[in-house]
């Protein structure tokens, strides 16, 4: 899978999609865990409470029925100690002293009567007395000196004293912490793995889309024979490619129809034109006397103008439909303009017109040499026909980014106001003009066919300015050096 894209991965759709998908996945699993955690914590709590309540009952019973003699402390103490060894959720600890359970008997006078557990039991008693524990259910009790709270159940026995059984929540907390830590590791791995999978699948999918985009953009305005690539799966992307290709088929077929029409029109007109011209020429060559030759010669000239008009009309018509066929080769605009100026300079200086070229050297574009030649000739013809004597024309050739810009400006009267909004339309010409009104329409047609832009306006200081910009699209089309263009004089 090749990714030729030059934009960073972070800005690709695949990245965004995987980010969102991962976020949703992470939130979902987190939520599930929170429920699970709650459930486990509740369950552990419930078990501890049940044990506490049961044990405290038993201990209370034992304390009540054990005679209050000298062995009372030992008997109850041992029972309490034994109970402490059956603590639920207890983790194996090497400590000799069991600090997770305490047993405490509080006398009626509020003094510590019996203590089994770590320490001397005073802080526990103080905490119990400060909190005034209810006797029906176990509650949390914070004891100074212990970092984790105790769960404490109590029972009042016959002699009025109270028995407290406390279970440290340390082990419960440790179990839950352990659970959370393991979950976090698994969750992180899952999320990263999920992100990876989503990212690579979407990227793969979108690379097909990118392939389609690249192929579609390669299919130029006039080259309709290529098709976008199809994948072997029958998924949405393939459907997209299929739809695009169907659309291209239809466009190509209507384009083909247009070509057939213009071609047959051209053909049907050209053959009789050829015959007429041939006959006129034959009769011109046999007519020696000037009086008869004159109308024949002028008929031939009219015929040539008609042919030129026919060519331009059809070109403009095809270009308006984005169907002008280009025969591409490399053209040096700088060289072309110099040759054109060389060609037109005498005609211009006859009229006192000056022409100047400002160029920074060779500037290659890829285009149809014949069309570009005719386009530039049209621009010169335009100036020659419309400029009053003594004006000057400046041409600036410049390259910006990936386009060549040609600016043609003069200091003549500019475009007549009434035609300015319609400069590039067919048959639009100034009142004074004697052309057939195709000049600028043709120029625009050629520029369009090359994927360029054109603008025409009047300068503030007077005079017309035409700006043509043609992209240097040399990459997509193989460059065939044309001998006609590579001429040097």
């Amino acid at each position, binding site marked *: 899978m090749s990714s030729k894209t030059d934009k960073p991965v972070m800005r690709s759709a695949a990245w965004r999609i995987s980010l969102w998908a991962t976020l949703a996945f992470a939130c979902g699993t987190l939520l599930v865990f929170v429920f699970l955690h709650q459930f486990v914590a509740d369950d552990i709590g419930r078990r501890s409470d049940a044990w506490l309540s049961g044990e405290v009952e038993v201990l209370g019973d034992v304390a009540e029925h054990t005679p209050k003699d000298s062995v009372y402390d030992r008997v109850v103490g041992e029972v309490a100690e034994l109970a402490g060894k059956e603590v639920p959720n207890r983790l194996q600890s090497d400590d000799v002293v069991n600090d997770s359970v305490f047993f405490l008997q509080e006398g009626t006078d509020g003094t510590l009567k019996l203590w089994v557990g770590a320490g001397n039991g005073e802080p526990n008693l103080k905490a119990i007395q400060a909190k005034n524990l209810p006797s029906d259910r176990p509650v949390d009790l914070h004891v100074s000196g212990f970092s984790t709270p105790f769960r404490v159940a109590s029972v009042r026995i016959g002699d009025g004293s109270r028995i407290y059984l406390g279970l440290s929540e340390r082990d419960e907390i440790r179990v839950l912490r352990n659970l959370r830590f393991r979950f976090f590791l698994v969750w992180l791995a899952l999320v990263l793995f999920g992100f990876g999978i989503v990212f690579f699948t979407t990227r793969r999918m979108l690379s097909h889309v990118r392939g389609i985009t690249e192929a579609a953009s390669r299919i130029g305005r006039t080259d309709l024979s290529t098709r976008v690539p199809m994948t072997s799966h029958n998924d949405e992307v393939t459907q997209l490619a299929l739809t695009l290709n169907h659309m291209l088929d239809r466009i190509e077929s209507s384009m083909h129809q247009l070509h057939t029409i213009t071609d047959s029109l051209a053909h049907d007109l050209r053959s009789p034109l050829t015959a007429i011209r041939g006959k006129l020429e034959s009769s011109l060559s046999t007519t020696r006397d000037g009086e008869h030759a004159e109308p024949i010669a002028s008929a031939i000239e009219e015929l040539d103008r008609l042919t030129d008009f026919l*060519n331009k009309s059809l070109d403009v018509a095809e270009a308006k439909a984005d169907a002008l066929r280009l025969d591409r080769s490399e053209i040096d605009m700088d060289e072309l303009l110099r040759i054109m100026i060389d060609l037109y300079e005498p005609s211009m200086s006859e009229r006192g017109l000056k022409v100047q070229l400002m160029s920074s050297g060779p500037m290659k574009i890829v285009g149809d040499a014949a069309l570009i030649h005719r386009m530039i000739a049209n621009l010169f013809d335009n100036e020659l026909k419309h400029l009053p004597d003594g004006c000057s024309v400046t041409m600036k050739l410049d390259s910006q980014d990936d386009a060549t810009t040609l600016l043609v400006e003069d200091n003549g009267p500019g475009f007549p106001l009434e035609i300015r909004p319609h400069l590039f339309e067919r048959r639009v010409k100034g009142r004074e003009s004697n052309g057939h009104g195709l000049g600028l329409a043709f120029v625009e047609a050629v520029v369009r066919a090359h994927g360029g832009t054109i603008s025409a306006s009047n300068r503030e200081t007077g005079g017309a300015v035409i700006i043509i910009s043609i992209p240097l699209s040399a990459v997509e089309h193989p460059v065939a050096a044309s001998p006609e263009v590579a001429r040097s004089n």
Partner: protein
Amino acid sequence: MRLLLIEDELDIQRFLRHSLEEAGYQVEVAGSVKRAEQLAVEGVYDVLIVDLGLPDGDGISAILRLRQLGVKAPVLILSARRSVDDRVRGLEQGGDDYLTKPFALAELLARLRNLIRRNNPSANEATRLRVLDLELDLLRREATRAGETLQLTRQEFVLLEYLCRNAGRVVTRSMILDQVWGMRIQPDTNVVDVHIYRLRGKVDGKSQQPLIRTLRGVGYVLKDR
């Protein structure tokens, strides 16, 4: 010179045959690919003119078929299409030439001469051209008229050289644009005329006998007698 004209339009057939015979060619005419194949097998030709739109096939495949039959003569393709087909371009690179309809007879004749000359390369190209009292030194890029050096620009020299090479024959404006400036354009202004006018000023200026003649509706000719 034997020439095979493959063209189905009767009008064009007729005037081409007439004009080509007048220009000194022996013309055989075929109105279809089938007939052309027959003629090509029977006879040997120096040059062929083939119209692209034929009733029983496409002109280019006809040319390729004739090539298979062993016809080596160069071909001038006549096309009524506006855009030049890639295949025509291919043939052009192979030494053949094309012309779009309608065309000036002078241009057709010039292209035919070119094709025949290219096909039978004569001895070394001359380095000097002489037409009456006009003399061109192609190596030193110098032109003299009656022994007097003409002050020509580079472009004017190229133009004069082209006229001299075609002395006595008509050259059209589009031929001049094609051969001297290297572009096939049809300016609707008199750009070529002005160049000729200037050149004439220098070549014929002081002389009693003007060499460059304008033939209205046709083009120019450099007189050689």
